[in-house]
């Protein structure tokens, strides 16, 4: 594999994987909480939360990246404060992870929301009559029944984070070995004549990962469905 890819391409693959892994891991609990709040809780500002969670899905990615720069840049509202405690996100791989996470967030929320909405509340009532307190109902009924959605959401978010381009390049730039992910590497290669072969290799990797993620999430969803519904 390393012989087939140049060091620069191989680095892009590794950075992409690192960025996507941490992005997915970081947004999972937040997306879970958001989905739970949107489905199960009534509170003022619910529509606003719903809008905010879905914003990255509909905004041009470059706008999302620019807003991240405004918020988390070293001069930014939150970024300045983070810098004081020694954390810099802009133009670092961590920044690429933040951008990828923000862009993948709506996909994860949607997947979790759908699986939570599909849970029959009456099953939770039944568990309560058997002596399970709300926390136990959550841990032994709600979460297990959400696992198919959690798997689908994680896989889709990972694939999305792996391929995120617009917000990442705006917020974290395109520094080889630092913040250059697969898509930003493809972009860089296409800017220079004669690099089509290298670009093509990365395109093949991108397409394979995306298809594998889709098939995997479909297969897991089917398996979970079969287990629960007996179909």
């Amino acid at each position: 594999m390393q012989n087939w890819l140049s060091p620069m391409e191989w680095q892009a693959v590794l950075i992409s994987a690192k960025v996507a892994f941490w992005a997915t891991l970081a947004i999972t609990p937040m997306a879970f909480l958001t989905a739970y709040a949107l489905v199960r809780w009534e509170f003022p500002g619910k529509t606003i939360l719903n809008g905010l969670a879905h914003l990255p899905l509909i905004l041009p990615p470059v706008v999302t990246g620019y807003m991240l720069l405004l918020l988390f840049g070293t001069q930014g509202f939150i970024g300045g404060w983070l810098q004081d405690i020694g954390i810099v996100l802009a133009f670092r791989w961590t920044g690429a992870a933040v951008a990828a996470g923000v862009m993948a967030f709506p996909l994860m929320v949607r997947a979790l929301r759908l699986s939570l909405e599909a849970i029959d509340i009456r099953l939770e009532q039944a568990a309560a009559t058997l002596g399970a307190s709300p926390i136990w109902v959550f841990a032994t009924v709600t979460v297990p029944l959400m696992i198919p959605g959690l798997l689908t959401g994680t896989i889709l978010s990972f694939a999305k984070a792996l391929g995120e381009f617009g917000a990442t390049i705006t917020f974290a730039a395109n520094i080889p070995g630092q913040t250059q992910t697969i898509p930003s590497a493809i972009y860089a290669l296409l800017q220079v004549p004669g690099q089509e072969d290298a670009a093509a290799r990365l395109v093949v990797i991108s397409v394979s990962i995306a298809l594998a993620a889709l098939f995997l999430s479909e297969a897991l969803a089917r398996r979970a469905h079969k287990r629960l519904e007996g179909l």
Partner: protein
Amino acid sequence: MLEVQARHRFTEFELNVDFAASNGITVLFGPSGSGKSTIANLVAGLLRPQDGRVVLGDRVLSDRQHDIWVPPHRRRIGYVFQDARLLPHLTVRKNLLYGRWFAKVRSNPEEFTHVVALLGLQSLLERRPAHLSGGEKQRVAIGRALLSKPDLIIADEPLAALDQARKAEILPYFERLRDEISTPMLYVSHSSSEVSRLASTVVTLSGGRVLQQGDPASVFGDPAILPMGPRGAGSVLDVVVVRQHSDGLTELSAGGQPLFVPHTPHAVGTSVSVRIAAHDVILARKLPEEISALNIVPGVVTQIHKGDGPGAMVALQSQAGRFLARVTQRSVQRLNLAPGTDCFAIIKSVAIAPRDIH
């Protein structure tokens, strides 16, 4: 002992009830929309009444005036839902053990074995709910409620979603519970045959109010306040098809007592149940001779209830099971009927229609 006093107003319906349930099976009986399931949910804590109190034994479960509210998971009330509601991600075994895990009083392994045997669940233990039939699911749901060591079991129309054959499969299990397990049960039903087979006490409901409360014979003996009218009263016997006779009759056996009914297509050896309407039963003190009726069943009077009208409901215990006979009060006097009296129940074969046999 369960005491319920509750008022709850919905947009188009007001529930206002006051009743008590003691040991055995208390059936909440009434047409749909009479408030039966609402009461079940109030008692289980799935619905919070706007006013009133629920007391189970020495525990106050809810009391609006004193602001007492015990959440469902601390009520120790096992609930058998109409749609079973088994946890789909757990095997039958884990469903059965789910409630036991939370119970304060740890049950012993023998109890698990006993309940599994009682409900015939041995072969299902490793299956998932999705692979069970409706009747099997309901049996698991009953077992699951029992094993949570409840102080009360609520069954909300547990047979309503099942077809006739499955109903006949599940009913005997409830009878075994009533006879073998001391946990009291609140059983919601709109079927008079379930009442006559299961009830120790009946609470009849209509339009969100309690009409009457008492033993089945006395409740069914009062036609004026029976929600379905006196024609709804009857008894159900478990029988086995013994023989198909060449003259078009089918011979059944109810606990050894032969019964002749018009031809039914059920195969010899199958277990079925026969519903006998109370007004189709004639009572006699002496064994009648030269009578056209083919079925004469000896029994003992257990209860007599006189209604406001001229009628009376007589409950009998016989080898074939429990009977209800609706006769006139004049007949009760003429025959000198009283609890303990031996008599014969006479049932015309042709009075039993094919739809009474399941």
